[in-house]
């Protein structure tokens, strides 16, 4: 049975760097996913992930098990993404060579998916940052509104309103999309 985040953090704070490596391995892809959708810049995600875990390592001695490790890590990732946003306006860069989500796609569906990807990424980038953040954390990371509230400092009711507004905007924005045959939610 894999050790929990709390156990790994305790071992890491005791000096076990392998425990930190295990935490990195466990959370690097979710953090990458979070950063990709938040910034809309897949080209920056690799370096930004490296930066996020460096910040986490430096802040490790100060971590206290008051919440969850994931919320703490997402907080660091959010700050890192905001620093990037402050340094320069980011524009959405579509991942043209990204892996298609559906298995063994045909060329037509491949181009359709790429177009869809571009449209969705653009629509996400058009959202205000607070709405985009709650949508990403709720949809991609599956966090509850209470956990998101602890992370962002905003009340859960406010977050629910933001989430509904974001979903409504995307619904109107992507209204012309054809209905997808399957749900490819990971």
């Amino acid at each position, binding site marked *: 049975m894999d050790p929990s985040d709390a156990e790994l953090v305790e071992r890491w704070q005791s000096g076990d*760097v392998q425990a*930190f*490596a295990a935490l*990195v391995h466990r959370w*690097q*892809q979710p*953090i*990458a*996913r979070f950063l*990709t*959708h938040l910034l809309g810049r*897949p080209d920056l*995600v*690799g370096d930004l*992930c*490296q930066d996020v*875990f*460096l910040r986490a*390592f*430096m802040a490790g001695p100060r971590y206290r098990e008051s919440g969850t490790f994931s919320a703490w890590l997402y907080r660091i990732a959010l700050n890192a993404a905001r620093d990037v946003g402050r340094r320069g306006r980011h524009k959405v860069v579509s*991942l043209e060579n*990204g*892996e*298609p*989500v559906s298995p063994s796609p045909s060329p037509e569906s491949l181009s359709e*998916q790429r177009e*869809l*990807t571009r*449209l*969705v*990424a653009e629509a*996400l980038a058009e959202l205000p940052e607070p709405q985009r953040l709650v949508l990403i954390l*709720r*949809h*991609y990371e599956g966090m509850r509104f209470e956990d998101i509230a602890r992370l962002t400092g905003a009340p859960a009711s406010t977050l*629910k309103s933001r*989430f*509904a507004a974001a*979903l409504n905007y*995307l*619904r109107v924005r*992507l*209204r012309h*999309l054809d*209905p*997808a045959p*399957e*749900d*490819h*939610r*990971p």
Partner: protein
Amino acid sequence: MNCSQARDQLPALLYDGLAPADATLVQTHLGGCPVCRQEFAESQRVRCALNNVPVPPVSVDVSRVFQQAAALQQRRARRWRSATVAVCGLAAALLLVVLLRLEFRFDAHQLVVRWADSPQEQTPIPLPTPEPTVIVRREVVTNPEVEEQLRVIRDTLHALAGSLDTRDAQFRQAVGQLETRLESLRMQDGRRWSENDRNFAALYNAVFFIPKQGVKQ
């Protein structure tokens, strides 16, 4: 349930955030409302579309994280050391200023540094008070005997002074005479020498020089 209430619950229904009873109510409304049903279907499509955004695979280099962390800690340690040295230097300078009671000021475009206590203001030296003038009144006391003695002494002194003057005059006169006598002797002596010279010259000529007619002997 009306459409407004149902639309408010659609995101929660979509993401399984409704209690079973509430979910049933919303589903019942959707069954009878095509507009809300259309909106729910569009929301479902958006949810699927969101899942289609690819995420680049990422592999964090943990060893590089450790190296960067070590470098950052070294930099922080250096900054703390520099800050500590600077603070200690400042504290030492302040302590020096306090102990030596240094005073800095600009005076006539020059930086003046003074240490130790400021020169105390000297109390002005009081001028000596003039002594009260004492008027001495001399009273001449006349005494005949003393007067007589004083007169005798005075006369004696005058006589002695006169005698000295006389002798001094005589002495000068004698000296003058001697000088005269010496001068005359000098002149006589001079004349004699000249005469002697002439005599010798004549004798020499007489003895050693023969007139031109004869042979020199």
